């Protein structure tokens, strides 16, 4: 199972963590976004690459990067301090 974590408004909508079943060969980040958006209608925009950064294995991930069953993924909405 792949552990997916959310922050900010995404955590409000998706929950703080989700366990997602991922095939042995993995799923691309873009594919994972699509799966999550299909499960939470109305959140596709906020889960899109233009709105939410994704971290995989402590690295900012690209849409074609593969995510395996043992990976942890974090989705970040836009940040703001100060």
């Amino acid at each position, binding site marked *: 199972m792949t552990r997916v974590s959310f*922050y900010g408004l995404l*955590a*409000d909508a998706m929950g703080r963590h989700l366990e997602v079943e991922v095939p042995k060969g993995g799923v691309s980040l873009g594919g994972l976004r699509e799966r999550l958006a299909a499960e939470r209608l109305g959140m596709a925009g906020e889960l899109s690459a233009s709105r939410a950064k994704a971290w995989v294995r402590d690295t900012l991930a690209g849409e074609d990067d593969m995510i395996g069953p043992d990976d942890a993924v974090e989705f970040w*909405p*836009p*940040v*703001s*301090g*100060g």
Partner: protein
Amino acid sequence: MTARATLIDGPFSPEALYRDFLARLGEEAGAVVTFTGLVRGGDVTGLLLEHHPLRTAVSLEAIAAAGAARFEVSGIEVVHRCGLIGPGEPIVWVAAAAPHRRAAFEAADYLMDRLKTEAVFWKREEATGGGRWIEPTEADRHAATRWE
């Protein structure tokens, strides 16, 4: 004196921070600029600053270090609060000490512009009618581009 950054999950006193900062200054300092950001009142009952268990502190340290590297300063300090903060309470405090005033003014300005747009927090305004997640404004983003 070098760059320091601290993440705090409770109230802090800008006055106490300022006294400590002054006490640590070296002889080269000829100017100190500080900035305190407060939660505005009005309809807002509080501000929730959600933080990341690892990356928030790292982002504060990186911004403070970048300010120290970029300007002719002798000391930089950033203190940022997380959690639920009430109206009128301080959220953020930055200080810059330098031999001459221009570098101190610019460093404080730079630190705040980068904190507004890059510090790893998720901010929600709490009001009597409910909460609203907020993001950097166009003005915040435009201000940050001045330093690119």
